[in-house]
């Protein structure tokens, strides 16, 4: 309820230096947190594991988190078992698959006529096997991430077994470009701005964006522990309202936020400048530094299309994919897990003054390009 007493005013929120942390930065800079009576301290982190651990032990009240981590931590995958929840999606899309120039050339040489890169890649993998060449190496940012799930889904769509036909590694986003340049990896699926950094430096070539795999897919969410949400319901609502206002502001003012984003992101890497931040946020996505004609509209959606609603159908897809790869314990009831982790009811209560969807499930969920 608006105007309800806030249980906790001073909050600490963690984030990773990526383009989609922008709603948090904007909420701080534009005073949206303060407007809700919150005094927020933002803390930049270096790994998703740190984000998770600090939320779980209570050093952070909440954080910018990979959507699948909420489910993974709730069942104790890869770490401490503690129920996490999300009632707010920080936006949609933003990921892309960038491959080395040499892999791009090989794909092109293998099949000039079609953009069915996944099937061409399958052919190429077979050719490499026949010639006794080492497996191709692809990197994503975290095991329980939309990046990893998207890449595996895309590979699977062409019959490529991500666990046996290629090597999948995990690298921090800020190291992707260097590893691609040094040929340690042949490609990576990561979020903005790292694809644009590789492309603008002429090191890689973007094969496809995450939206080509799943249009308007979930990405980062505001995660808190279930315990925290129960103890601080009004604070949680205030936080959601502030972030909603930031996302709404961003929808119309993304260009204005670029200096702010650069200021925060460049703290973590000297490779980041404003130019590489533009494509995913405001401008048109550039796939290669030589192919100017192939551009698509900006990939990150901060607010429109009900981007902030924590759709149960998003959680459903994530849980289904985690199950598909055998990550979820056999005794887990997926439907229960989804309802426990994704909380549209809290979103609805916090934002009862805006237009809300009638259902908690998005109908066109199966509108995947590669399904």
């Amino acid at each position, binding site marked *: 309820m608006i105007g309800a007493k806030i249980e906790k005013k001073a909050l600490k929120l963690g984030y990773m230096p990526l383009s989609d942390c922008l709603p948090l930065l904007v909420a701080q800079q534009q005073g949206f947190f303060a407007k809700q009576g919150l005094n927020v301290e933002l803390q930049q982190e270096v790994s*998703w594991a740190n984000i998770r651990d600090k939320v779980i032990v209570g050093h952070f009240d909440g954080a910018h988190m990979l959507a699948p981590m909420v489910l993974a931590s709730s069942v104790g995958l890869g770490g*401490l078992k503690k129920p996490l929840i999300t009632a707010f999606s920080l936006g949609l899309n933003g990921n892309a698959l960038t491959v080395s120039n040499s892999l791009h050339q090989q794909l092109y040489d293998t099949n000039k006529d079609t953009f069915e890169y996944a099937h061409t890649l399958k052919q190429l993998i077979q050719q490499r096997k026949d010639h006794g060449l080492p497996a191709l190496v692809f990197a994503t940012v975290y095991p329980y991430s939309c990046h990893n799930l998207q890449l595996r889904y895309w590979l699977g769509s062409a019959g490529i077994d991500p666990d046996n036909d290629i090597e999948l590694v995990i690298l*921090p986003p800020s190291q992707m470009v260097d590893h691609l340049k040094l040929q340690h990896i042949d490609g990576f699926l990561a979020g903005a701005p790292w694809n644009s950094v590789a492309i603008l430096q002429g090191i890689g070539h973007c094969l496809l964006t995450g939206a080509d795999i799943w249009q308007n897919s979930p990405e980062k969410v505001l995660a808190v522990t279930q315990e925290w949400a129960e103890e601080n319901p009004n604070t949680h609502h205030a936080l959601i309202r502030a972030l909603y206002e930031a996302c709404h502001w961003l929808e119309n003012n993304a260009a204005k936020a670029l200096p702010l984003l650069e200021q925060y992101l460049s703290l973590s890497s000297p490779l980041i400048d404003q130019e590489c931040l533009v494509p995913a946020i405001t401008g048109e996505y550039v796939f290669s530094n030589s192919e100017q004609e192939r551009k698509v509209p900006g990939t990150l959606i901060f607010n429109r299309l009900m981007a902030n609603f924590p759709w149960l159908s998003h959680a459903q897809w994530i849980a289904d994919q985690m199950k598909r790869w055998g990550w979820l314990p056999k005794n887990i009831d997926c439907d229960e897990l989804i309802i426990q982790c994704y909380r549209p009811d809290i979103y609805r209560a916090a934002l009862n003054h805006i237009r809300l969807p009638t259902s908690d499930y998005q109908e066109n969920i199966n509108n995947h390009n590669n399904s």
Partner: protein
Amino acid sequence: MTPVRVMLVDDTPTRSAILEQALRDQGLTVVCRLESAQGLIKNVEVHQPDIIIMDLESPDRDTLENMTVLNQHNPKPVIMFSDEDNSQIVSQAVQAGVSAYIIDGLNPHKVKPIMDVAIARFREYQALKKELKQTRDQLADRKIIDKAKGLLMKTRGLDEEQAYHAMRKMAMDKSKPIAEIAQNILSVMELLSP
């Protein structure tokens, strides 16, 4: 009984050297000390540690986390104390800036003493670093204050005590640290000097 094999990943060599010594004193074997996760997976395969202790400030932690979902032929690390009851020690570890991964098979009872040592050394290092910074800041402040004092004596014809007193009064009036006042004086004088 074979000693527990520990691997350290820390980009601060002084700290990991201190920790290595402390662990050796406890009869443990430090099999490998890495400054980054470059070649991390390979090193785990080669050195077969029972436990990996890692600096929380290392972005390479996520790389290591992947081993929790990796296939069977690799050792399978589990973040420390998956047991929910141990959240307090986890909290202490996070506070101290250290994380650990246990490889399957290590007796959980052996983990706590190792973690206690790691947490203690990381804390000690934090305290040392803080102390060093304070000392450095104080030294730097002293230099600035002395310089500003000298300038006031020269330009205003004050003696040392009067110059210091003038700055201290201004600091109290404006409720700002005297070093900041001194810095302001130096900046203004620099601006006005021909």
